[in-house]
């Protein structure tokens, strides 16, 4: 418990540091991109929105730094991240809110599936060395060593294109209105198959390999020999004794990978022009949409920290040795 509290304190500190950095960076950058944008859009931005942007980007220099800092925090806590320039006049929080489900849906689901499938195959490969799964390994390793960008483009070139079942870009048929209905859902699924498959192909072999190697390591432990000597069924030895222990390092790896769902799959979304957060960030960078960039970075930071906390909790739950009595 003490350990967990220490970790939480550390993550809170890190979050504070990241947010504070977010506060200072625009204030230290020479020149004033936001000011110029505001002037360019003069008259189209409400006074409130301008005030909010001033707080976020340090244009309210008539106030003391401390006052600015307090105002900045107050605004963040209210969920006000300013207005996006690209999607003007939509607030950043709204833009993020509309693209987050796409990322979580595509990358989140594939991350989980990849972990589960890869781990299961790794258990099989490590327990029965030389089985058909081992034969699969060189292929999956090869696929995972291809830079993702390339893999995605090859997949598009091979499988997508005029007349193909797989669309090459987007998250749904243009013209459809996002809704949970019989037109939109199938279209969204259809658009997600190719990017999902490429993510699986490129990320799964990591799980297979690490799980396989851990299984091989664990298999030579004394307690495995004892489990065999006890006459337990092969299944029980493999799962409850070997896999249970081999899983430990992978679970924290998995929790950490959850943190990168939001930010780490930029390439997938860029290649497939998928309307998720990564693609959004890409566009924000291209159009110098500073408020949006800052908002997305904030979300990424927080999700990485939350994932770290999850990893700690998972380890604490799964490995009794970390629980001090």
């Amino acid at each position, binding site marked *: 418990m003490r350990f967990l509290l220490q970790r939480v304190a550390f993550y809170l500190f890190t979050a504070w540091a990241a947010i504070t950095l977010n506060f200072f960076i625009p204030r230290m950058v020479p020149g004033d991109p936001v000011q110029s944008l505001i002037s360019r859009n003069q008259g189209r931005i409400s006074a409130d929105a301008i005030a909010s942007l001033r707080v976020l980007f340090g244009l309210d220099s008539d106030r003391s730094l401390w006052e600015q800092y307090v105002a900045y925090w107050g605004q963040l806590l209210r969920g006000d991240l300013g207005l996006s320039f690209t999607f003007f006049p939509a607030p950043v929080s709204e833009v993020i809110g509309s693209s987050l489900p796409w990322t979580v849906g595509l990358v989140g689901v594939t991350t989980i599936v990849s972990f589960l499938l890869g781990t299961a195959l790794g258990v099989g490969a490590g327990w029965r060395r030389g089985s058909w799964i081992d034969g699969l390994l060189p292929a999956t390793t090869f696929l995972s060593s291809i830079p993702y960008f390339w893999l995605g483009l090859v997949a598009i070139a091979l499988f997508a294109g005029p007349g193909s079942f797989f669309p090459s870009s987007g998250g749904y048929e243009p013209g459809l209105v996002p809704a949970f209905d019989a037109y939109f859902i199938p279209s969204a699924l259809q658009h997600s198959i190719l990017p999902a498959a490429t993510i699986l192909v490129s990320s799964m072999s990591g799980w297979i390999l690490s799980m396989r190697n851990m299984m091989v390591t664990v298999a030579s432990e004394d307690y495995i*020999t*004892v489990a*065999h*000597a006890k*006459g337990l069924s092969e299944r029980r030895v493999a799962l409850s*004794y070997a896999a249970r222990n081999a899983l430990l390092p992978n679970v924290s790896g998995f929790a950490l990978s959850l943190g990168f769902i939001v930010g780490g799959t930029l390439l997938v979304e860029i290649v497939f022009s998928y309307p998720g957060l990564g693609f959004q960030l890409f566009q924000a960078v291209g159009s110098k949409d500073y408020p949006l960039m800052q908002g997305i970075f904030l979300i990424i930071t927080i999700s990485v920290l939350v994932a770290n906390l999850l990893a700690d909790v998972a380890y604490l739950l799964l490995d009794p040795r970390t629980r001090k009595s």
Partner: protein
Amino acid sequence: MSDQVLQIRGLCVDYGVGADAVRAVRDVDLTLHRGEALGLAGESGSGKSTLAYGLTRLLPPPGVVSGGQVIYHPADGPPVDVLTLSPAKLREFRWAETSIVFQGAMNSLNPVHKVSTQLLDVIRAHEPKSTAASRLARAKELLRLVGISADRLDSYPHQLSGGMRQRVMIAMALALEPQVVIMDEPTTALDVVMQRQILGQLAELRERLGFAVLFITHDLSLLVEFSDRIAIMYGGRIVEEAPAARLYAEPLHPYTEGLLHSFPALHGPRRELTGIPGSPLDLRAMPSGCAFHPRCPKAFDGCDEQVPVLGAPYVDDPARAVACRLHPAVAPLSR
């Protein structure tokens, strides 16, 4: 019911196959009688663990049993060759008939499972019809048997001391009341006081429950005290076999003599500690003739050519056997 419970006949174990194979256990004959404590001693690397793993079919790769038989005589029913049991029969045989306490007993418990989980699952695996309550009662009783309080069932291995973990392993080994318990250096990692305490307790339990023990250690002085009969191993072969007291009083094989001078005796007159000159055998470069001859202080003409075989050196003492040309066989081995 046969007086013998385990007969090892001509057991050979190799590491590797083909040209690279080394033979770690050579043509071993060994008999364990019901309720007896048979000690197996020899320097580290002499093949004791390999023998134990071989006869229970637990050899880690690249180990393979390359010959021989391991005949087990159940309390009821006909004898079986452990080496030819089907996988299902082997699982039934394991632990219920022959359990093992391993050399690495410190790591014999899975760190992520509670003591109770590891104690109960073996009972459930072998007695699927037993009720959860009866299994729990048995587990508590077992811990009590080895002097551990029942609330330790909820502990994880890392919460127990080394001595306690070892006791848990002994309790576990007795869970199904096997006929044979193999102990491979069960107390080597413990301090001397703890060692003797546990072995004393084990002797008591053996008296009470009547199981036979194959007790393996490199410390011959422990065996002299805690076993009925002792077999000495060198280079994968049994080189001497005798009742414990006889072996201690009158070691015949020069290697046995060397071993007795390698450890301080716990009781009785002090012996001079001289150890054995030379280094333990390299299986890849087995000497010709008697494997011990390069280190043997008593080697004589022909020891580097003729392989001495295990035989009875005394007509009137069939319990003794030795493989040394100084003590040629005068009577056939009775087994």
